[in-house]
């Protein structure tokens, strides 16, 4: 209990650190700027079969993508980096340190996700036509999609982070993820894609996060251009829920195995390797 509270404190302190240095602030602002630029270039395009602005469709989809990206990549990165530099070993050397560390990391990654979401959402709402937040039900949808999305992706990210030992090997995760984003209907509807590609996209959380966010922000009749001509909330909960359960079952096993193998000499080994790369 005390360790859980210490973990929350840890997450809060680290979140504050991200707001007080240039590198982290840039990491918050850069994706928002990038998104606005992309949408700017889409300003004259419309969603096929409608007169609805493609940019306004992309905005909520990209927010969903960023929730998935935060859960998967930020979490995986944090774990590999913390393992390489010995942060994790420090946690292991103090009583209940691992519990505190994990709760701290979840708090940090969730907090960072919410901050980036806000930074991207606010200018989007102010600048784009057609985005509507229609009262409580829209906000409710936004909240459950974001929360469920985080629970579905963070454990998977933690698993990747435990398996990848070298932060420089993160490309192994980034490349397939990029491919997945391209096929998940974030920047363009996938209804015109080959059917097998549509099925593939629907296995993974990114498509469903995009869909869920669109359902929160787009007018109801835009559901007509989605697969099945509906927002499919039930299926969204089903697929994201399945990923969440899978992650929550597997992550503790993988994390425990990874933590058990941490020791001073392992960190020293990695430090040696990293030093060789630098020089």
């Amino acid at each position, binding site marked *: 209990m*005390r*360790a859980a*509270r*210490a973990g929350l*404190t*840890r997450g809060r*302190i*680290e979140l504050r*650190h991200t707001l007080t*240095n240039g590198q982290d602030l840039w990491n918050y602002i850069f994706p928002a700027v990038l998104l606005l630029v992309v949408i700017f270039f889409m300003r004259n395009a419309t969603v096929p079969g409608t007169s609805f602005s493609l940019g306004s469709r992309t905005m909520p989809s990209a927010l969903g993508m960023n929730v998935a990206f935060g859960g998967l990549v930020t979490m995986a990165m944090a774990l590999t980096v*913390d393992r390489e*530099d*010995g*942060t994790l*070993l*420090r946690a*292991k*050397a*103090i*009583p*209940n*340190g691992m519990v*505190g560390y994990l709760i701290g990391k979840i708090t940090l990654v969730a907090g960072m996700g919410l901050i980036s979401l806000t930074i991207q959402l606010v200018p989007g709402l102010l600048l784009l036509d057609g985005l509507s937040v229609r009262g409580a039900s829209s906000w409710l949808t936004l909240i459950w999609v974001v929360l469920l999305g985080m629970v579905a992706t963070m454990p998977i990210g933690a698993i990747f982070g435990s398996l990848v030992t070298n932060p420089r090997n993160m490309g192994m995760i980034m490349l397939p993820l990029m491919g997945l984003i391209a096929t998940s209907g974030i920047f363009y509807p996938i209804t015109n894609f080959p059917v097998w590609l549509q099925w593939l996209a629907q296995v993974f959380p990114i498509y469903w996060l995009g869909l869920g966010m669109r359902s929160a922000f787009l007018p109801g009749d835009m559901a007509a251009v989605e697969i099945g001509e509906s927002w499919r909330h039930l299926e969204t909960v089903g697929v994201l829920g399945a990923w969440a359960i899978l992650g929550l079952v597997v992550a503790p096993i993988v994390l425990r195995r990874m933590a058990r193998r*941490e*020791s*001073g*000499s392992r*960190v*020293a080994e990695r*430090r040696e390797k990293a030093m060789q790369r630098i020089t």
Partner: protein
Amino acid sequence: MTVVRQLRAPAAVSDPPDDDLAAIEVHDLRMRYGTTDVLTGVSFTAQRGEVVALLGPNGAGKTTTIEILEGFRIRSAGDVRVLGVDPGHGDERWRSRLGVVLQSWRDHGKWQVRELLAHLGLYYTPYSTPRIRRPWDVDDLIDAVGLTPHAGKRVSQLSGGQRRRLDVAIGIVGRPELLFLDEPTAGFDPEARREFHDLVHRLADIDDTTILLTTHDLDEAEKLADRILILAGGAIIADGSPDQLSRRVAADAEVRWSRDGDRFVHSTGDATAFVRELFQQYGEAIADLEVRRASLEDTYMAFVREYESGRSASALRAFEEVTR
């Protein structure tokens, strides 16, 4: 006798074990990676309040031994008790009584020194006892390791020596009963080394902390340790105070003197007799007399060489018979 022990056993789980229990008991510890035997039967004990230095050539198994005792590595075989508990199954209460000094690198770079120590101390509050108040008050701790002028600095802004002092502070923030130091002063300048030695002395004296350290610096071992263990080829080949060890090897003392402006050096097994003779022969003409007993370095080299020439097993047996 057996009955009493059985009755006592459950109480030992929740209460801190009795003071007369050894802090570390290792019996026939073995470690094997694949087909390589790293430890082939390490046995030693460390009493409470003792400062023990573990010496040995590279690859002798020092770090492996210390990591097994810290509970970071699972041993292949042997009996190990650290504060009365098997480190392979140590719980969080056990963990709270240990301190491990790790070499920091760039972890927690964004944290301020005081912020980090205060945070890490939080984890120890549930384990405070009337005898040992945990954690260490953060400002006292920062003062004890000499970081007061840097308390508000970010960890990434500290110099190498300051960072190592922070490592020590993190290791002792929970007021450990047993502290592990794996090559604590590697990369220190002489001044930082001296300050570090003072700190270790203070810990051992004031808090009666048991300390197990590994080092390559024999002067350091001699200065800090009550007892020295020499680990070679996966086993302890020597165990005793620096004095006891030097008496065990028949190393020669070195006698230096000058006579009529000329300087002389002579190695001898019996320095007292040699010097007596010297004075009888030359009397007043002798000046600048200096007698240097075998240093720990000489002793250490003698042991390692003896081991490497394959005589260690028989020598050790002979020694044990004599002391028995």
